[in-house]
């Protein structure tokens, strides 16, 4: 999905990154735990999270994540927004919960990032 389509279906508010709305994102990963994001994300994902600590931006930077959706209507600090802007990361806010935002995107064709680690047996 293109980032502008993601914003549209989530009825989201664009916070920064207006120059990158035509970029395509293939997968979504929803998580409030940055340790898990660092451990499991392999692809070009959209990160959905309710966490608004600046380390969310650093985590995204390390993984080359291009866009982040902040759920539950949380408001990031000016500092976090500036960090995202400098790194050319798109930030979007939505009122939806993490579950609903993920469901809406899945329904519209965004795939879920699969957990591929061999050491996880289910």
């Amino acid at each position: 999905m293109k980032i502008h389509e993601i914003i549209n279906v989530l009825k989201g508010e664009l916070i920064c990154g207006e120059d990158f709305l035509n970029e395509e994102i293939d997968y979504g990963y929803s998580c409030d735990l940055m340790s898990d994001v660092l451990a499991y994300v392999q692809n070009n994902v959209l990160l959905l999270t309710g966490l608004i600590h600046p380390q969310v931006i650093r985590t995204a930077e390390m993984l080359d994540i291009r866009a982040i959706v902040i759920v539950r209507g949380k408001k990031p600090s000016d500092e976090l927004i500036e960090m995202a802007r400098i790194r050319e990361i798109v930030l979007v806010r939505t009122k939806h919960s993490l579950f609903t935002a993920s469901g809406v995107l899945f329904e519209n064709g965004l795939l879920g990032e699969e957990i591929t680690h061999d050491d996880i047996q289910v």
Partner: protein
Amino acid sequence: MIFKYDVEGGEFINAGVASSEFKKVLKQLGISPEIIRKVSISMYEAEINMVIHANGGHIEGEITPESIHVLLKDEGPGIKDVDLAMTIGYSTASKTAREMGFGAGMGLPNIKRNSDNLKVSSILGEGTEVEITFQLN
């Protein structure tokens, strides 16, 4: 080529600055994106550990034609049981660390998975050394 970074302790907002800087260097040198990703994830995990557990420390990143070697040294409390610390899900991190999305006991196992060699040496009360190596060929 050796790049040196000082990491401040307790500065959760600045945690990751060194990893970010080193990532820029690797990009400028034209290292492959796949390797850059592995180095960035590993160094960032280790840098976060240093801030959370050890009140900061020093990092040296060395780049040779054959490998990238990241050495992190701190004078923190040390790790009581390194094998236990390597176990997925084991963590002694503070509430503050958990609030910023860390402290899930994923860090060291994740570094091991992303690197070609991980060596953790620790002396209780003196500090910890973490050496991470990535082969370039």
